[in-house]
């Protein structure tokens, strides 16, 4: 069967997530860096 999936965005690895600091909806506006 033909693969019907078109990948639009690759998955992020947990190591990338570890680098994040504040959530997109849960942020202190003044802190993001």
């Amino acid at each position, binding site marked *: *069967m033909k*693969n*019907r*999936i*078109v*990948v*639009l*965005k*690759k*998955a*992020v690895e*947990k*190591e*990338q*997530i*570890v680098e*994040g*600091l*504040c*959530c*997109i*909806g*849960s*942020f*202190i*506006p*003044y*802190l*993001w*860096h």
Partner: protein
Amino acid sequence: MKLSRYTKVYPSPDSADSVILFSTKRASAVLVPKDLLADIEAGRLSGEEQAELAGLGLIATDHAAERQEMLSYIQDLNARDRTMKFIVVLNLDCNLACRYCFEGTRKGKKYLSDEVAARFVEFVRTRDYADKDEIRITFYGGEPLLSVDRIAEISGRIGSFAEGRGMRYRFSLVTNGVLLTPQAVKRLRPLGLASAKVTLDGPKDVHDAFRPFKGGAGSFDVILRHLGEVADVIRIQLGGNYTKDSYRRFPGLLDLLRERGLGPDRIAAVKFDPVMNESSEFALPDFRDGCSSMDEPWVTEASVQLREEILKRGYATPKTMPSPCMMERDHSFVMDHDGILYKCPGLIGRQGCSVGDVRSGTAPCRDSHGLDDWKNEECLACAYLPLCFGGCKYQKIVRENSMRGVQCQKAYFDRVLGPLVAQDIRYGL
């Protein structure tokens, strides 16, 4: 196999027969025909399709296993974290008088003393570095560059310690940019200065109204000049804080930056955020123009529109992905000018919110800060859990004077996540 609980299904803008699947857990997205959704449940995927969707986190073996995965998600992230992070509030003084400053009435001529600086260095030196290869400090204020000598002193000592342990040391500044001169950068760069987050609140007239010097003069021109002078030496991240009345002016700022040679090649990332109203305990008495909740409709419109304006001009901005609150990090602390330790800068000075101090050490805070309060069936079944983990404790305490319980963001994500994912796909984030 089943569709993951943390997969959102959105219509495709290009085809009525297809849908976009987005994983809030892995930030992956695919375009698939609608009938593939039924094939997942019926076990009719090809082996190749099944492996691909599973690898992207879009399908799961069963929900019980996935539930367990989420319960240990933060623990797993902490185990992978190889960086020890500190935010140091060097002072609560400032050369600007921003109308909305969230530190508000906490501000004053309060500076880190020699004793607190020495205790902090000792606190850093005595952490457990068994699985760490980097120490990172964010110098914060007030205005951190009013304490440039202290930055140099602390960085020199911690840099030497890190080097002796075979670790990397670097630091960043959250600065208003007024003192971010080439001379300051030249002095601090060899000590580990890697980046600075600077704030512009719109084009000159808007910025100067919101972020004047204490004497009343505008600060826009001097900040812009310094950005032009240092943007090739350190990584510059640009933030901006908007209100319901000012956000429509921010695209004008982006155009101006490009005209002045501060395009995407010189500004590492841009992100604008709404000004949140502070609690009455600390709020500046003359300012109530911020938002009290992310549920205010204009916040949705502004956040999506401004992100589009940033992306279409080629600037980088954070992608939509799980990004747990710094409070969840085991190896992350905020220290104020008195040596009191917190898990978030928004908690500074709030009664009962500290987690210890650099003299006597730290105490557990998962219970007092309600960090496990999202571990309930409603949150675990929510597709937005990996983007939320119970919401923002700072917003919770501002609104409810308590960190216990969750700050549900479902309504907010219902409105914004689809458009944000569409932007991520369109701009290749």
